[in-house]
């Protein structure tokens, strides 16, 4: 069990997984800003959002200055701040979508930042906003430049499967723990969350599963290696099979859904003792 499950999970609901606890999607969890209180974080906009606290840019400066105490301090602050997201495989994503309402498809803020992609076409939306926060999207026209497309549960599931087919990682986002407010579809290097996870060990925590290759079924076609965004899965030349580094595996399940021979099994993280408590 990860620390989010320990805090926000319910043993009676969904095996104690925090994101399968319906309470975390409840309307009264949504934090309303008190009158007169300023904007903070990503809500305030791209630039002020980036400046609302220490960032990885400050981390780089500390590294360049060979200043370990500052580096450690910033890293700890970023770890504490980024405890709000987890990688979720497609099977669990379907269960999540049955719990929340409304669901709105939106353009991705990370791709807008990093590649200046301004999605105006509803078919190109790559992120999902969930819960009551989506109902007031019109207050931030700059953030939702491409608009919002509200969908029902079946449409959302279908869209999620399409995103999985394209090869995006599903990351569940918390907006003020434990309120779950978004579902991101990420890839490296365009997305901020996945990028800070791979480069700095910050951001989203790993999922509750790890991938294990069945060598009897694997024929070494290499499709899973193309789909891994974490640098955990590679083609092992010696025995011509796929090979997973379980310490790097985030349990997104993309290799499993992409495998044409069903050679990859997603095991419970707790069933593999060495990585049972590896969350970053």
């Amino acid at each position: 069990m990860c620390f989010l499950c320990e805090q926000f999970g319910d043993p009676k609901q969904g095996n104690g997984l925090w994101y399968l606890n319906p309470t975390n999607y409840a309307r009264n969890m949504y934090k309303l800003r008190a009158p007169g209180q300023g904007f903070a974080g990503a809500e305030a906009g791209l630039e002020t959002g980036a400046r609302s606290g220490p960032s990885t840019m400050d981390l780089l400066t500390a590294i360049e200055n060979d200043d370990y105490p500052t580096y450690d301090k910033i890293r700890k602050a970023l770890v504490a701040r980024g405890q709000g997201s987890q990688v979720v495989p497609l099977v669990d994503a379907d269960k999540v979508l049955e719990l929340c309402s409304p669901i709105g498809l939106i353009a991705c803020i990370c791709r807008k930042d990093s590649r200046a992609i301004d999605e105006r076409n509803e078919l190109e939306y790559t992120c999902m906003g969930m819960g009551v926060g989506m109902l007031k999207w019109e207050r931030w026209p700059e953030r939702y430049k491409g608009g919002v497309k509200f969908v029902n549960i079946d449409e959302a599931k279908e869209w999620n499967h399409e995103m999985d087919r394209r090869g995006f990682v599903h990351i569940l986002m918390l907006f003020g723990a434990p309120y779950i407010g978004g579902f991101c579809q990420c890839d490296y290097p365009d997305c901020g969350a996945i990028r800070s996870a791979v480069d700095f060990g910050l951001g989203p925590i790993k999922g509750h599963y790890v991938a294990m290759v069945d060598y009897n079924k694997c024929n070494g076609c290499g499709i899973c290696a193309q789909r891994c965004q974490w640098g955990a899965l590679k083609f092992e030349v010696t025995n011509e099979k796929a090979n997973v580094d379980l310490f790097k595996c985030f349990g997104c399940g993309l290799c499993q859904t992409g495998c044409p021979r069903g050679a990859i099994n997603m095991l419970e993280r707790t069933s593999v003792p060495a990585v049972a408590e590896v969350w970053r």
Partner: protein
Amino acid sequence: MTYSLPMGRKFPKISIDLTKCTVPFLCKKCLQACPMAVFNVARVMSKEKRLVEMDPRVDGNYVLHAPRRDKCTVCNICIDVCPVNALKIEVPKQGRSKVETKGVQWGDKE
């Protein structure tokens, strides 16, 4: 897992001339050409513009910056594609380690 970058490493310094680069969200050439997605485009914030949609064609509504310069390989693709020559990359000189290693052989005791 340890992810830490070696302390004391110097990263390439990417300087962006904002008087030349004024409409990055419209041009987006460097943003899409960079193999490591080093660049970011940010919205210029001010109180009155906070809840307004910004026009990318207006000068200075968006600014370009390079927050992910730890991944910059100095391949100079961005400099080649930039239509206004606003970019400049300074290759850093790697500082020497603080520990004096001169004359120490493998197996020597401290």
